[in-house]
C-alpha cells in the first residue's frame, strides 16, 4: 500500500516538474519582432509584470518539486511537505491566474478601456504563450490533485476504504 502511495505521488510530482519546466522555458524563449507601418514592435515576456511573476513562480515551484523528490524518503518531514505543497499549489494557481488575465486582454483586447489586442501582430508569440499557459495550468491542477491524494491517503482509516 505504501509503495502504491509513493508511486502515485512520485508520478504526480514528475508530471508537475515537467509542466513547470516546459512553462518556464517556453515563455522565456518566446520573443517576436513585428513591423507595422515602419514601426518595430517587439514582444517579450519581460514587457509584462504578470508574465515575469509567472516565470518566477513556476521556477520556484519547479525547484521545490525537485527538492521534494529528493527528500521523499524521509517520513519525518511529511507534515512540512504537505504544508509547503499547499503554499506552492496556491503560488501556482495565483501565477496562472495572473498570466491568463493579461493574456486574455492581449488576445481579445478590452474595448471599454481602449486596449487593442496584440495577437494579430505577433501570432507566433501568442502561440508560444498559449503552450506555456497550458503547461502552467497542468502544473497547478496536478499540484491540487497531489494535495487531495496526500490528504486522502493520510485518512484511509477514516474513509473506511480498505487500502
Amino acid at each position, binding site marked *: 500500500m505504501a509503495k502504491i502511495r509513493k508511486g502515485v505521488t512520485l508520478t504526480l510530482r514528475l508530471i508537475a516538474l515537467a509542466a513547470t519546466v516546459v512553462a518556464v522555458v517556453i515563455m522565456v524563449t518566446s520573443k517576436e519582432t513585428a513591423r507595422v507601418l515602419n514601426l518595430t514592435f517587439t514582444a517579450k515576456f519581460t514587457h509584462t509584470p504578470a508574465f515575469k511573476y509567472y516565470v518566477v513562480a513556476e521556477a520556484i515551484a519547479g525547484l521545490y518539486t525537485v527538492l521534494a523528490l529528493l527528500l521523499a524518503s524521509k517520513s519525518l518531514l511529511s507534515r512540512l511537505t504537505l504544508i509547503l505543497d499547499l503554499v506552492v499549489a496556491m503560488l501556482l494557481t495565483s501565477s496562472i*491566474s*495572473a498570466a491568463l488575465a*493579461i493574456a486574455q*486582454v492581449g488576445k481579445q483586447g*478590452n474595448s471599454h478601456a481602449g*486596449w487593442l489586442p496584440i495577437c494579430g501582430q505577433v501570432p507566433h508569440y501568442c502561440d508560444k504563450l498559449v503552450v506555456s499557459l497550458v503547461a502552467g495550468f497542468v502544473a497547478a491542477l496536478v499540484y491540487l490533485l497531489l494535495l*487531495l491524494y496526500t490528504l486522502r491517503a*493520510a485518512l484511509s482509516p477514516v474513509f473506511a476504504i480498505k487500502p
Partner: protein
Amino acid sequence: MGEEEVVQKRQKAVVLVLRAAALLATAAATIVMALNKETRTFVVATVGTTPVTASITAKFQQTPANVFFVIANAMASNHNLMMIGSDLFGIDYRGFKLPLVAILDMLNAALLSAGVHGAAFMAQLAKNGNSHARWNEICDKFQGYCNRGGIAILASYVGLLVTLGITVVSIVKLLKPKPQPQPLASEIEVP
C-alpha cells in the same frame, strides 16, 4: 481529560474567530467590487461653440478578471458562512467532518488565491498601462473606480492570508495521530 477538553475548546474558538475574520474580509471584497461603477463625462470634440460630450462608464463587468474576482470571493464567503454555521449548530458527520473541512478549505484557498491575483494584475495594468502594447492607463481618469477596486483587492488579500491560516490549522488537526483502539490488520507491517 479536562485539560484536553479546554485546549480543544480554545482551538475551536480560535478557528471560529479566524473564520469570522475571513468571512468579513471576503464579503467586504465581494460587495465593494460588485458595486464598483463610475461614470465620467468627457468633452470629445467642439462643434462650433458647443462642446460635444460623451459619458463613459467604468464597471467591474467590463473586465473578466474582476468578474472572476467577485465570483471567487462570493464562493469563499459562502464557504466560510457554511462552516461557521455547521460549527455553531454542531452538525456532526461522524468523523467525516474534519477531512471534508480540510479539503474544502484547501480548495477555497486555491480559488481565492487565483481570484485575487488575477484582479490585482489587471489593476496594475489599469494603473500603469503597458507602453509596449500601446495600452493606456485608465486610472488617471477613473480614480474612484480604481480606488474602490484597490480596497476590494486589499480586503481579499487579508481574507486569503486568514484562509491560508485556517487551512494549515485544519490540516495539522487532521494529521495529528489519533489514538486507535487497535491497529487495522492491513496496517501491521511485518518487518
